[in-house]
């Protein structure tokens, strides 16, 4: 019988691109810029880079080493390291299953938006009309067209998590498509995955570069960039900044899921993974920083656009201009002075110009003057005349001043799906050629999402295929197909009307705490159970030299201490946080309200946290019992034999 040798990457480049494609995901685009904004802008880079060197890189190195040496998926690898530690692998697989089930829903949303970009006007650019065609739908008017498209037309969200609603057909179709795309990419194993990652790893960079060039040339982009990059170093004194940096590095690199072990298991034994680990980690962090530059220029554009629309709507630009004129020295309100300083205040002048027409219209409508009676050169005369003759009526229109504030527009920090699907689509609808930008952007989101999915699916498939039992009875395609079908069916529950609330639960709890636990056990197992010396020798056999003493110190002391610290913080935060809450969409108010999770949701949260972690002690217990039984049997055989 001919044995099938383990499949491998066609060249080391495929492995590197697969790791990049996996690590560079949506978190780089929608979580890192948010953290930057929350923790002092440019100053956040300091804890971020420190954590990269002290925690991220060494753990990445460790997982690649294990995968490449053991040449098995996470379950087999950890069982080989120590028979009692097979549970770590099982825990990784369980977390990966949770992850793929909810993560692919994001790809479904990206597909939905992508397909809706092929229209004359983008559907989220305008509010739909109510049935009698005279007004816009009230829910849309109270919030915004982009909010409405996301909450109502995409999710059709219910008002609370208890209200299930039915499965939304559009979402379900897109989810099925997403799973079919994932299946297409992984069904041949490394042969197909290796080719797909050439595209999923490089296309996002192409789009980001195009967006960068467009973004920094947008009007107002500099406001956003200035806001982000002004470091507020005082924010670094807060421990939250350091904790967020540590967790961001951990989750951004995708440690603990078993994907890196899976990918590395397909490497040749002597592949130089040390260099590759450093390269991939650095690329991941550089991408985060790059993505925040793009995001902040888009933020700046959107904030400036909203600010100027606000100015347009109100009479405020007129008063600003007025103040400027007064402060420029002319005490008399005089139309000549407008023209004299026209050249020095171009931006205000343009705004004032468009605005003059509004002022003119407002005055002639309120006071029933002839259309061409108010001209630029007699505006001031009219204003003083009307103010004097009809002070009450004039007062009613001067109270139309809204306060327009650029800072508060920039302060609206958003992360996650809100950033990706609401804020970005709002900015895109105001750019010229919005359909093109929309298609580019959502394709990029898709590539990022699918790239990460490939890693997580590999983390499940590789250990499953290591089980000879399964491989003998099922063809590779069938096994992978069944897994995809199962996850797709479970994932349909996220396409119901309350699906987004469940999605948020999974997003916050399924792969955060458990991963910390898994990574901690990993590092303790390798350093203290398996033995650092043995590990060193394994690495020497693979790449020809022992790891630098820096790595050894970090593995044995610094990283475990850091992770235990994070662990304690998470537990404390969870205990002190009280009842977990969520943001529910209120269609009557047109905004989100905070609600407490009902008991069954809290039970699900608890289950998510505990299920994967329980695998470790449970598996150890099972192995212990099995060993005891074997020992008892052997003793019986030896006693009966003698």
């Amino acid at each position, binding site marked *: 019988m*001919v044995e099938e040798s383990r499949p491998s990457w066609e060249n080391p480049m495929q492995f590197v691109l697969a790791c990049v494609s996996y690590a560079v995901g949506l978190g780089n685009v929608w979580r890192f810029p948010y953290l930057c904004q929350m923790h002092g802008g440019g100053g956040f880079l300091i804890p971020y880079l420190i954590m990269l060197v002290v925690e991220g890189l060494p753990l990445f190195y460790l997982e690649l080493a294990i995968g490449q040496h053991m040449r098995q998926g996470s379950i087999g690898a950890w069982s080989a390291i120590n028979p009692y530690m097979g549970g770590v692998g099982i825990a990784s697989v369980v977390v990966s299953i949770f992850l793929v089930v909810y993560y692919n829903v994001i790809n479904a949303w990206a*597909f*939905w938006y*992508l*397909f*809706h970009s*092929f*229209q*004359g*006007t983008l559907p989220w650019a*305008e509010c*739909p*009309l109510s049935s009698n*065609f*005279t*007004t*816009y739908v009230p829910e849309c008017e109270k919030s915004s067209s982009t909010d409405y498209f996301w909450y109502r037309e995409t999710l059709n969200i219910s008002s609370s998590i208890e209200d299930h609603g039915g499965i939304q057909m*559009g979402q379900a*179709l*897109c989810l099925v*498509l997403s799973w*079919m*795309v994932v*299946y*297409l990419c992984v*069904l*041949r194993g490394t042969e*197909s995955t290796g080719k797909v990652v050439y595209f999923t790893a490089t296309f996002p960079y192409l789009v980001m570069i195009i967006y960068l060039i467009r973004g920094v040339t947008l009007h107002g982009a500099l406001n956003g960039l200035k806001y982000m990059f002004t470091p507020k170093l005082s924010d670094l004194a807060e421990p939250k900044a350091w904790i967020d940096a540590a967790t961001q590095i951990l989750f951004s690199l995708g440690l603990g899921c078993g994907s890196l072990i899976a990918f590395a298991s397909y490497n040749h034994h002597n592949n130089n993974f040390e260099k590759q680990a450093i390269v991939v980690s650095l690329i991941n962090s550089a991408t985060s920083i790059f993505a925040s530059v793009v995001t902040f220029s888009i933020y700046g554009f959107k904030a400036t656009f909203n600010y100027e629309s606000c100015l347009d709507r109100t009479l405020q630009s007129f008063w600003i201009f007025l103040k400027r004129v007064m402060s420029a020295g002319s005490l008399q309100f005089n139309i000549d002075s407008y023209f004299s300083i026209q050249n020095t205040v171009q931006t205000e002048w343009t705004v004032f110009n468009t605005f003059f027409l509004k002022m003119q219209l407002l005055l*002639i*409508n309120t006071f*029933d*003057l*002839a*259309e*061409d*009676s108010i001209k630029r050169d007699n505006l001031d005369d009219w204003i003083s005349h009307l103010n004097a003759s009809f002070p009450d009526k004039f007062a009613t229109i001067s109270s139309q001043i809204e306060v327009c504030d650029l800072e508060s527009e920039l302060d609206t920090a958003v992360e996650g799906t809100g950033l990706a699907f609401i804020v970005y689509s709002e900015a895109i609808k105001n750019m010229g050629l919005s359909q093109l930008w929309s298609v580019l952007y959502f394709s990029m989101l898709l590539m990022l999402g699918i790239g990460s999915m490939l890693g997580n699916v590999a983390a499940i498939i590789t250990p499953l295929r290591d089980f000879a039992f399964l491989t003998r009875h099922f*063809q*590779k*395609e069938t096994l992978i197909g069944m897994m995809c079908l199962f996850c797709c069916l479970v994932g349909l529950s996220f396409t119901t009307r309350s699906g987004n609330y469940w999605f948020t639960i999974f997003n916050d709890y399924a792969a955060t705490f458990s991963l910390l636990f898994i990574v901690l056990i990993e590092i303790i197992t390798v350093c203290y159970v398996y033995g650092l010396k043995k590990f060193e020798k394994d690495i020497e056999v693979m790449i020809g030299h022992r790891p630098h003493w820096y790595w050894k110190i970090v593995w044995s002391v610094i990283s475990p201490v850091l992770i235990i610290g994070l662990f304690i913080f998470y537990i404390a935060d969870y205990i002190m946080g009280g009842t977990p809450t969520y943001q529910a969409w209120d269609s009557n108010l047109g905004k989100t309200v905070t609600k407490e999770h009902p008991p069954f949701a809290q039970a699900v949260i608890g289950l998510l946290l505990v299920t994967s972690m329980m695998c470790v002690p449970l598996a150890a217990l099972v192995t212990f019992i099995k060993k005891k039984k074997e020992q008892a049997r052997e003793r019986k055989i030896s006693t009966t034999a003698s």
Partner: protein
Amino acid sequence: MLARVLLALSLVPALALALCQPDGQDAYKVRLSIKTALGANAYEWNESEQFLFRATLAFAMRKYTGQETFNVSSVIVCNETPRVSFWFVVTNPNDTTTLIPKNGVEEAIRLSRNRINSAFLLSDKTLQFVGIPPTLAPPSQPSLPVWLIVFGVVMGIVTAGILALIISGFIQRKKKEKTIEDEEEKQERIMENGISFETLEGKDGVNNGAYSHDEDRLTQL
């Protein structure tokens, strides 16, 4: 007699004016922005234009109610301003002292809005009835939503790809199995004494020189 006729005549416009009150319950304010709409081609607003307005409104009432009793005199205008804005009311043709209620007038105007606008070469924005919102243009909806078409295309491509990969994998595996079977058959044939001669190409055995007697047929002296 003459005095009475004069009194009656002077009362009529007085009555009419009494019916037409700005901010009245059944009165509407109209605002025209002729210069904004037409620029250099703007026409002068005068009595004749006013007459046209009243006639158009009477037409709208006729169309809406189906009663052909409405006339130019049923529409009363007051408070005209240089803005070109004024108030108007519509009197009931059967009883000129009562007014047609507000929503009746509104529905009539809504029904014939387009015709009224065209009579004055204006649009919903430039011929404003204060209190009657303009009808917003509904967005064009194609019969099949565009997104479904794109979805169908992508789904088709992905399905084709999956089928292609599965079938080619299946064929490859069948070929491999066939070559393995052939090799196994060959191996069975050349098994001798439990030792398989993999190096042989299915021949009759190795020529062992030790047992070859050809040279010894003729013994040597």
